[in-house]
């Protein structure tokens, strides 16, 4: 067979295909969230409009709200309006009361009547910073610990690292979080522990983020260390590692250039999935450290059945996860030439 290689065109086509799939995915997510929030209460006999205006309001007020939010329309129409709002904005009209919501319009909170989008833009960067910072930390430490353990298999270092890793995997976030706060912030007083916005002070921001980062990263670093160790040991037994040694390469080069690159692929696959699951951990961490991220807001929104907020957060995190997975896939293709045209 002739050598068919992934040229720039193939990569572009691949990206376009993936982006298209991501867009379809987002629409499906919106529909599913809509169904859950509109159909489930209907089956349960709960009136959303009533919920929204409060129990004391009269039927007129309820009806007005229902009209304003077009709650009588079919779910699909509502979802369509919602999606349209994101791209071109939308207008809420109820009687003489007209509200213009310019694009990107994610609607208004049922409870506080706040516009959703500004809250998202204000809070999302904190969550993103927490997640990305933690990911970088856990990748560095997880990989390093795993590789060292694999190379020094059976030694004291290996056993020690694996015990710490086991602890990391089994301890819940609020435990490690509170423990680290107790030790480093209240006990030793090394770190303030208060969140400071990045615009105000870089060092202050770093100081506020470091404990959340470490706490969140600890859990994942532990898992990654164990996986790295197992993968690395398997790779070291591969024939091509023997070939690399037979060429006369120095051992560190064999590890770095030949073994490490193969070890990365299964880790990347894992990373793609973990970035999705990360939101749960991030919410817990944010509540533990009182960070002004999405976490706190999401908990409130769920308690209050605040659909616009839940939709907004779901969408923005889904988008983040889809983009992260796209990046992971592209990285995968860069690392492993065999998946380039898949």
């Amino acid at each position, binding site marked *: 067979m002739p050598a068919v290689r992934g040229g720039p065109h193939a990569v572009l086509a691949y990206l376009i295909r993936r982006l298209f799939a991501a867009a379809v995915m987002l629409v499906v997510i919106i529909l599913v969230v809509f169904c859950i929030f509109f159909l489930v209460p209907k089956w349960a006999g709960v009136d959303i409009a009533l919920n929204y205006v409060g129990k004391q309001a009269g039927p007129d007020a309820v009806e007005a709200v229902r009209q304003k939010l077009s709650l009588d329309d079919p779910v699909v129409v509502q979802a369509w309006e919602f999606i349209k709002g994101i791209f071109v904005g939308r207008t809420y009209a109820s009687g003489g009361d007209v509200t213009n919501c310019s694009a990107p319009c994610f609607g208004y909170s049922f409870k506080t009547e706040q516009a959703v989008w500004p809250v998202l833009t204000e809070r999302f960067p904190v969550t993103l910073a927490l997640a990305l910072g933690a990911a970088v930390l856990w990748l560095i430490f997880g990989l390093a610990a795993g590789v060292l353990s694999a190379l020094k*298999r059976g030694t004291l270092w290996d056993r020690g690292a694996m015990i710490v890793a086991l602890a990391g995997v089994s301890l819940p976030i609020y435990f490690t979080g509170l423990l680290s706060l107790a030790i480093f912030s209240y006990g030793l007083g090394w770190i303030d522990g208060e969140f400071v916005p990045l615009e105000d002070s870089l060092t202050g921001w770093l100081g506020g983020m470091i404990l959340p980062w470490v706490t969140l990263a600890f859990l994942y670093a532990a898992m990654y260390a164990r996986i790295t160790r197992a993968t690395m040991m398997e790779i070291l037994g591969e024939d*091509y590692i023997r070939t690399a040694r037979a060429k006369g390469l120095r051992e560190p080069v064999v590890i770095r250039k030949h073994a490490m690159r193969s070890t990365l692929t299964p880790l990347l696959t894992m990373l793609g999935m973990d970035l999705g699951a990360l939101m749960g951990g991030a919410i817990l961490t944010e509540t533990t450290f009182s960070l002004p991220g999405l976490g706190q807001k999401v908990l409130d929104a769920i308690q209050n059945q605040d659909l616009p907020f839940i939709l907004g957060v779901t969408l923005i995190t889904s988008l983040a996860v889809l983009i992260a997975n796209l990046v992971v896939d592209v990285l995968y293709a860069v*690392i492993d030439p065999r998946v380039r045209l898949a």
Partner: protein
Amino acid sequence: MTDTSKSGAAVGEPTGSSAAPSAFLEVRDLKVHFPTDDGLVKSVDGLSFQLERGKTLGIVGESGSGKSVTSLGIMGLHTAGQYGRRKAQISGEIWLDGTELLSADPDHVRKLRGREMAMIFQDPLSALHPYYTIGQQIVEAYRIHHDVDKKTAKRRAVEMLDRVGIPQPDKRVDSYPHEFSGGMRQRAMIAMSLVNNPELLIADEPTTALDVTVQAQILDLIRDLQKEFGSAVIIITHDLGVVAELADDLLVMYGGRCVERGPAEKVFYEPRHPYTWGLLGSMPRLDRDQQERLIPVKGSPPSLINLPSGCAFNPRCPYADVPKDDVTRTVRPELTEVGSKHWAACHMSQEQRERIWTEEIAPKL
């Protein structure tokens, strides 16, 4: 590492002082043992041989006979994949061009790997790194031992690919191993191992994973390249046909030991060990008229942890009762010279073996 491990000079064996030998490659009393939870695996247990430049030695044996471990031991790769675990134990002497490898500085041995001695493996797909192009891998092999820039090294890689018969080498140099066919991969592997003009080439089952027509191409290539480069070649295989094509000398291994060694013609036409007879009788041959029945060796290869006492082959040997006093089951036979440069390790007398071969075995082959 010194003479302590030697069990006295076996008759006709190239032992003696540990002074540098005259042969290009000389292995003396090589032992490679792997400690495991079940016991000590004696993969190679006292192996000696010599090899000159421009000559080919064939090492023949079944799985678990220690033939691959021998080659890894020479290359210093026997511990591969054994990180941190209980280390493989290696003893004896390996002299390569006047240097004893087992007592030499490991970094010096590393520098010899790839430059003085190179290796071709059985499965070229798994032996080449899947993430690097063929060119990158050959360039790397060249630049370890030559201080040249990448461009020069790449030119060298293209030249080598051309030499081993890969069409359009300037294009194929940028292909990945999975884009090559099995035969092309093995050619690329050969190109990589020969890029530094090594004086010793070890080919471990180089054609076992290949189809027969491709095997013929690769054997042809190895033969031509050896003529051209004048290297010493060790070819390790279970296929007597393959060694007959290439080898000048033959070494038959069983249970980690050498049972017969000599010039290929001698071992093929006048074999003096029952195991060699068994191998010859087991294989159907295209060059003879149809045999009525094959003459298999009964039983299975021995466990390397619990080798049978005495002659390791005795439980499978149809002639185990020929020598008197149960000696086959109690005493390990030493290699004795049975002809010019021809050794075999068997308790039967020369005359007995000659008679059995000419009267009972040869007519049935």
